[in-house]
């Protein structure tokens, strides 16, 4: 819904679509200047940080997976990393590689969902992927095939695509059989080709050029593109341990807003996710992904949020290529999990969810009982930056008619693939009033 009257113009979307979860947005323009921007969340709070208290530390991966059906592996991986940190345990490289393979499956599934079903329709003027399929069925089928192959990896390694059952603190319940993993190679070769075709497809879209100035935050992992581990780093030279990052990222609840906002050092908004990962790690991409990025016209850093669909597609190429390499090198971890004995203490885990950095921090008792939990999902970290993007996009697009400007705003939110279900475990539901 949108309407203008005199010098005051309000752009509002009451039920934001093609995002994970339920939210809305509202932008107010006074005399040609954007005066108010709010990405509002009406997803009910679910209180995960409270319900985890009193649970056993081994339960955190399965319980926190239920924060998000789109990226359950991210929750499982950050929870495992935090608990292993608390207990002073390091998993062996075979377990780490299998986790990385599982996580690649989630990146492929989630990125294919976002690129093809949620985001591409914006660039092509379609309400949804069904309408898009009427025009270009081949493209949608390619996207669905990518998504299917991502899910296949998750089912093969994790036992199930949504809320995998095979993950435990310390590793896995059972290592998948070598022939089952080897059978992923052929679909992954097909997926890698489909991902390359995806980069070519999206880089041909008519992409608005509304660059921003971002403080990027992403993991760095010893010269590898980061997924399941690494050190939090920023485009301004920050390079800290996961625990130090947890102290630096301060979240505040403010009455005007519907979300906790994370700021570095309590001051500075920042952005996590594909643009940030790419900006801090593009030099570590394997040749096939680096070449795809170059052919799509991307430099080492991309600051136009509307090009995030291109970056996400480059990450699809990377994830398919990386998964294929992991499949070809697969040796079952034996045992599939290391013993993790609880001790009194605290631990922090950070991993790269498809839509950005996900931090878990737990305090546990000597018997493994969780005493305190903190979960900081990507969307709460990106909230302030998404609002800043909206402000810029509206200012830049004042010549557009209301309907077009409203759509442009929706697209600007979807640029960052916000997961409102994730964020809502601590978001409030108060209604914003004018």
């Amino acid at each position: 819904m949108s309407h203008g009257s005199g010098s005051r113009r309000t752009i509002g979307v009451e039920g934001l679509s093609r995002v994970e979860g339920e939210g809305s947005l509202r932008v107010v323009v006074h005399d040609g200047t954007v005066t108010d921007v709010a990405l509002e969340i009406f997803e009910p709070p679910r209180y995960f940080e409270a319900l985890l208290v009193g649970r056993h530390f081994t339960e955190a991966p399965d319980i926190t997976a239920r924060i998000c059906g789109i990226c359950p592996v991210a929750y499982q991986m950050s929870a495992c990393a935090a608990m292993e940190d608390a207990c002073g345990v390091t998993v062996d490289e075979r377990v780490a590689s299998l986790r990385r393979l599982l996580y690649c499956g989630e990146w492929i599934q989630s990125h294919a969902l976002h690129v093809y079903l949620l985001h591409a329709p914006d660039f092509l003027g379609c309400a949804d992927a069904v309408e898009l399929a009427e025009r270009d069925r081949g493209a949608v089928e390619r996207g669905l095939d990518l998504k299917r192959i991502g899910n296949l990896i998750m089912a093969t390694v994790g036992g199930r695509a949504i809320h995998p059952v095979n993950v435990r603190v310390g590793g896995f319940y059972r290592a998948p059989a070598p022939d089952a993993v080897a059978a992923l190679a052929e679909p992954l070769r097909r997926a890698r080709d489909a991902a390359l075709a995806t980069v070519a497809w999206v880089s041909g879209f008519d992409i608005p050029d509304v660059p921003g100035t971002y403080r990027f935050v992403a993991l760095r992992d010893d010269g590898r593109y980061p997924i399941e581990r690494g050190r939090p780093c920023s485009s301004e030279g920050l390079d800290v341990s996961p625990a130090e990052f947890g102290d630096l990222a301060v979240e505040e609840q403010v009455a005007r807003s519907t979300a906790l906002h994370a700021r570095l050092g309590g001051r500075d908004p920042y952005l996590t996710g594909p643009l940030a990962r790419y900006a801090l790690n593009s030099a570590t991409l394997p040749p096939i992904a680096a070449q795809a990025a170059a052919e799509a016209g991307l430099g080492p850093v991309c600051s136009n949020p509307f090009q995030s669909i291109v970056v996400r597609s480059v990450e699809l190429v990377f994830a398919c290529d990386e998964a294929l390499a992991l499949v070809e090198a697969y040796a079952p971890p034996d045992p599939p999990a290391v013993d993790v004995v609880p001790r009194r203490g605290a631990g922090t885990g950070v991993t790269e969810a498809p839509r950005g950095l996900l931090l878990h921090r737990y305090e546990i008792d000597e018997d493994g009982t969780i005493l305190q939990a903190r979960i900081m999902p990507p969307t709460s970290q990106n909230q302030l930056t998404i609002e800043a993007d909206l402000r810029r996009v509206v200012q830049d697009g004042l010549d557009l008619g209301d309907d077009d400007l409203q759509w442009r705003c929706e697209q600007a939110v979807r640029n960052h693939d916000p997961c409102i279900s994730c964020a809502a475990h601590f978001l409030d539901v108060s209604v914003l009033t004018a």
Partner: protein
Amino acid sequence: MAEPRPSLAVWKFASCDGCQLTLLDCEDELLTLAAAVQIAHFTEMSRATVAGPYDLSLVEGSISTPADADRIVAIRANSRRLVTIGACATAGGIQGLRNFAASGTYAETVYAHPEYLASLDTSTPISAHVEVDYELHGCPVDRRQLLEVIAASLAGRAPVVPGHSVCQECKGRGTVCLLVAGATPCLGPVTRSGCGALCPAVGRGCFGCFGPADTANTASLATQLRRQGMAPIEMARLFATFNAGAPAFRDEVSAQGGAVQVAFGRTPRSRNHEAPR
């Protein structure tokens, strides 16, 4: 002239999105389904929305705010058939653990300013608020079962979804019984089938994603687990996950007495919300 296609609406309440994602995970059937029905309201998938009434509404999530308690009534009134999908919608979900805790303690743990919240002290299934035509279980729901329920609902017949336990699926795939052979705690004997007995196949006891089976004898299983040395707090945790609000599981949690208060009832230490520095 072709008959108008039946209209399908998908609604979300307190949940993780995983059950409606299951619909998008029907990669082989999605475009066929979209041709067979009019997808009239499905915000995760489309920015287009068509006013009701709807022939079939699929509802994900539990009721946990006053606004949602009103919204589900309006959706029911606008839906010819209403089917709930998943553990949140059928049993209150993992967020239903607040039902075991003292009033208000959860909000105070997570929020610096609980006074900004408009949240209920309980998380309850859809059936506690409106009449439901069919409940599909699972955390998440199974893709094949979801397609069966949609097809059956649109055809006006009863869905063919078995109500027996996970044990039958384990036997079907030839998995050795963990409970008997390995003394591994397993909820398989009392949990509804549908997942394909995934956990025992990886050497892990069932943890009850699909909630209680039709004729679940939880008391008998609890006796067996106690005999194998399971402590009351472990028993409370085992039964109190995604389907803790389902009566057969809830009763077994409550039967653990004081352990329940230890696990879910105490006031946790407050989360570290700091003012800007």
